[in-house]
Structure formats: C-alpha cells, structure tokens
C-alpha cells in the first residue's frame, strides 16, 4: 500500500518515487502536488498507474503526473511520459481513446452584462446548433474522399470551406494540423464512426461554456490574447469523437500481440506499446495524427457554429459580438518534440494524457506574435466553477517537457456522483447562482457535478507556484451546454 512515506519531497510541490521502489521502474516517478492533492491521489490507483508508466521502454528523465492526476486506465489522467527516439516506444493507451481531446477558447469585446438579456436564447441556439451525445451526428455528411481530406488537413480543410479564419489556425496548437497523417492506416470502422460526427460535442465531460472574464492577473499578456475583464469568453471542450475512439481501440487491440513480438512486457495490458520507428509504431502514429486533425477540425466547426449562434441571436441587438480565437490546446496526444536532456538536444515522443503542452517563450512551435510571451494554456474547471487561462514557462520546458495540468481532476466516481446528486436539482442550484445549464441527460449532468472534482484553483495554484505555468486570467461560467 503506497503512502506519503514512499515519496521523497524534492521541493514544496514536487514529490518523487525513486526508481528503486519497484524492480521494473526504468526512471523515477514525479508528482506535482501539495500535500492535500498528494493524499487525494493516494486514495485510488493513480500513483500505481503513474509508477507503471515509468516502465515504458525508452522513457527518459522521469514519469510525470500533474496535480489534477486521477485514476484512468493504463496511464493515469494527468500523466506525461517522454521516450527517446530511437529506440523509444509509442503507446496508444498513453494517448487515450479521445485522441486530441482539447480545449478552445474564444473571446469577445462585448461584456457579459450586455448579452445577459439574451443569454438563454444564446444557450438554446448553441444547444440546437452544436449536437451532443456520444453518437450525435453533425451538419456535415462527408464523402470518403472529403473525410480523408479532413484527416490530412485538419483545420486547414475548414479554412478552405469557409468555416475558419486564418487567425484561428495561427492560434491553434500545431496550427490546426499534425503532419504525418495517413488515412490509409485508419480502419473502415473508424471512417464510418467519423463520417458524420464533425461539428458535434460528444458526451461525458465535454461541454461548451459561456464565461465572464472574472479576473485578469497579467493585463499586458491578457490584452495580447484579446482577454479583458468582464467580457464574454466561450470555451469548447471535446475531441476526435468516435473516429478517435475507434483508432485507439484498433491499435491497442492489435498491439496486444505485436508488443509481445517485440519482447515488451508491461505491468498493465492497456499500456501496450511498440517502438516508434517500427512499421507498427509508424502506422499508429499516422492514424493518431489523422484523429488529431479530425479533432482540430471538429473544434473548428463547433467554433463556427458558435459564431453563427451568436449572430443568430445578437445581430441587430448588440454592436460587437464577434468571437476571436484566443488559442486551442490538445491534452490527449503523443507529439514528436525536441527537448534538452542533460545538455543534449534529443528527439522525444512526448505522451500527454490529460496534460497540456505549455511551451515557454521563444519556442519555434509558437506563432510569431506569441514568441515573446509563450503558449496560452487553457484549464477548464468542473461545471459551475472557474476556469483559467495560463501561459507556458521556460521552467516547464526544463522540468516537464513543456507540460502542465489540464483541468480540475476527478475525485469521485461517476456511479457515486449519481447516487449523491440529482441532475435536475443540480441544474436548479446552478441556475440560482446565475449559471444556465442545457443538458441532454440529467444523469450525465449528475456525473459531472462540481463535488465530483478537485478544486481547480488549488490545482492551478500548484502549477503556478511550481513554476510550470503562469496565471493570466480566471473565467467564471454563465451558461453551460453539456453533452
């Protein structure tokens, strides 16, 4: 049974399990947390899952978990693992089923008070225009050729069809397109699941949220990002839908045998992996890139539908209701990146499973206008609580492969949340606090009750005080559209 005694406290917010804790560990395992969050992580199997990731072949430095760590399957949610290429591995389970699940933030020059009289109309329009639910179908029914174009081009496909602005792509991780995608490695099942799901939200913890910018911590950087106090902001949280789920399923299943063929043994079958440079590793990476591009395109089409919904309701009533993109981040992804390890620049496969890229200033991966400030990082809170806009730091580049947390992190099971909370009552409680909820499922709403999550402000406090992100702004919800 793991306890706090198994950790070495390296600094106020960094705890380490030494490599000697278990024979199969290849590197130490590190957790960013305060004492309370560490103890929360010890209440389920999160830390065992973190230790398991330290056994992956080719892993460098340490397996990392963020303060929003919670129990997942294979990797813990909030996990970061980098493997050296070659001969390091890529693990489909280290990315997860919702490949490129992520967050997009749009911001307006209009204040929340100006749109408040029309808020319910906007929420209803968003609910109608942004289909939700696991199997929901969107407004675009693509041919196989068109779908493959999306899988290769991501948000760029949307730009060509008038669903995106050039500035949207500039403010998207990887500019809205991961290179290396090859749709011939995407199964027929995955094609069929994705064909009509572009522009849909999905279910679970996915949402669209209208927020008020409640507090700005760094006015200069916030203004550079188009964020001003009291103004309207809109968050989109979703991913690659059924297409991504199927790609992960296909490769996790296939690699059960392949990993054995490569002589790889692991403590959990969900961690299954193959050498990145192998034929099988390349096929997964290219299929994963397709799902990532699909997710970028999906959030882009949702952003377009949100802009249309605002126009539908506010045209002729409010002067400037336009929504500009602040940024779009992925938090379930494997990326090929260069990082400095012990004075050497190395090519790594960085797995972020429920963790966000948080590159500091001067990173070549950022657009020119963000080079001097670093990458915006979007941290959604639980339903009805705050969300944060952070910015990446040089210290994150040194300590966490340019990564930080991704959200609040669950502490209560979905089954328990449903036993303790009634969805209809929760909706009423939130309404009394000025937060409108549109949800397709009351039981789904109960599963996402704020009580089921950690305090996002506490999580953000840890990453800021640990130096792996800086705080820019806090957002408070006024309307939530749930899958």
């Amino acid at each position, binding site marked *: 049974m793991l306890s706090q005694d198994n950790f070495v406290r390296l600094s106020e917010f960094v705890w380490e399990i030494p490599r000697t804790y278990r024979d199969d560990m290849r590197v130490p395992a590190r957790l960013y947390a305060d004492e309370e969050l560490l103890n929360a992580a010890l209440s389920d199997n999160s830390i065992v899952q973190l230790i398991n990731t330290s056994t992956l072949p080719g892993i460098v430095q340490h397996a990392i978990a963020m303060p929003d760590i919670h129990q997942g399957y294979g990797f813990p949610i909030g996990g970061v693992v980098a493997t050296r290429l070659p001969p390091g591995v890529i693990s489909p389970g280290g990315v997860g089923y919702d490949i490129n699940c992520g967050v997009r933030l749009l911001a307006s020059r209009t204040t929340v008070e100006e749109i408040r009289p029309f808020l319910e109309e906007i929420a209803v329009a968003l609910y109608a225009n942004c289909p939700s639910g*696991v199997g929901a179908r969107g407004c675009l029914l693509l041919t196989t050729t068109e779908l493959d174009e999306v899988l290769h081009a991501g948000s760029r496909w949307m730009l060509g069809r008038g669903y995106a602005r050039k500035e949207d792509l500039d403010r998207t991780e990887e500019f809205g397109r991961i290179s290396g995608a090859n749709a011939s490695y995407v199964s027929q*099942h995955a094609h069929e699941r994705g064909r009509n799901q572009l522009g849909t939200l999905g279910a*679970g913890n996915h949402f669209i949220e209208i927020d008020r910018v409640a507090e700005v911590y760094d006015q200069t950087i916030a203004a550079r990002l188009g964020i001003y106090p009291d103004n309207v902001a809109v968050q989109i949280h979703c991913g690659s839908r059924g297409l991504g*789920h*199927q790609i992960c399923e296909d490769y*996790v299943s296939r690699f059960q045998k392949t990993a054995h063929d490569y002589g790889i043994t692991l403590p959990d*079958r969900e961690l299954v992996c193959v050498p990145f440079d192998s034929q099988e590793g390349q096929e997964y990476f290219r299929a994963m890139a397709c799902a990532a591009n699909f997710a970028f395109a999906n959030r882009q089409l949702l952003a377009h539908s949100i802009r249309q919904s605002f126009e539908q309701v506010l045209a002729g009533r409010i002067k400037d209701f336009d929504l500009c993109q602040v940024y779009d981040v992925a938090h379930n992804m494997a990326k090929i990146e260069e990082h400095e390890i012990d004075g050497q620049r190395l090519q790594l496969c960085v797995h972020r499973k429920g963790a966000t890229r948080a590159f500091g200033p001067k990173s070549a991966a950022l657009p020119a206008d963000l080079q001097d400030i670093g990458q915006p990082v979007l941290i959604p809170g639980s339903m009805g609580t705050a969300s944060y806009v952070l910015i990446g730091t040089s210290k994150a580049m040194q300590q966490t492969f340019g990564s930080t947390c991704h959200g609040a992190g669950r502490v209560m099971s979905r089954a328990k949340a449903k036993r303790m909370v009634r969805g209809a009552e929760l909706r009423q409680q939130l309404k009394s606090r000025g937060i409108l909820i549109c949800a397709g499922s009351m039981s789904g709403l109960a599963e996402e009750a704020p009580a089921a999550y950690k305090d996002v402000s506490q999580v953000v406090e840890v990453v800021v005080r640990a130096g792996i992100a800086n705080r820019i702004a806090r957002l408070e919800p006024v309307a939530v559209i749930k899958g």
Partner: protein
Amino acid sequence: MDLQRNLRPVMGSEEVEHTADRAFRVRGRDLAELLENAAHAMVALDGEPPDSERFIRRVVEVGGSDRETLLVNWLNEILYLEQTHREFYDHFLLSNVTENHLRAQLYGRQLNRSVTSVKAATFHNLEVRGTSEGLEATVVVDV
C-alpha cells in the same frame, strides 16, 4: 425468440467503483456466458433506452489473439454498431465461441439517437480468471 425488453438486473455482474470512468465485474460458467454477461453489463450502464418498435437483428463475427482480446473486441464491436447505426441491443445469442473467435446474433431496437455513453472497452488490468464457478473478469470502460 422473445424480443420484449430484456433490461432485467444483469445476473453475473456488478458495477465496480472507478474514479474517472466506469467498470464492471462479470462472471460466467464458461467463456460464452462470460461474453454474453459482459455485453449485458455494458449496455446496462446506460439504463433503459427510449421506446422503439423498430426491431433489428445483426450477425457479427469477432476475433482476438486471446480471450481478453476477444472480450474487448466483442464489446467494442457492439459499441461500434450501436453508435454508427443508432441501435440498442438487449439480446445476445453467441455460438461457435473459442478463445480466439465468436459468432453472435444481436437483437435490439433502432433508435432516433445513440444512447450509449460508453466510448470504448479497455484492457486496463484485464484478466479472464478461472474461479471455482467458472470464469470472471473486471472490465474498465472509457466514458
């Protein structure tokens, strides 16, 4: 075959606590019964679906490199069919079950929308274990 709704409490299975996702423990006297009970346990996670009189039947064949892979592939095939065709299944008739292959008839209903909240069945700590009464496994599903 009786095609009336078959949403009885699932015998041979129970839901297990999981922080972020959902999990169920399933048992069977043999592999065929374990696979059938696992299918019932998974669809039961979403409760009762909306009414529909449009009955459907599908036949599937599923393979896997071992019985755990067969179990995961079987559950994921059901999810694929439910989500792409907007269907809900409540009877599973399995035949020709080996450790690497199964054939099954799925009976259920066509719906106006997909009702499943499950994205995928996972291999997380998955092991089909022998017990004094047959077989047992705990399946974690991503939601």
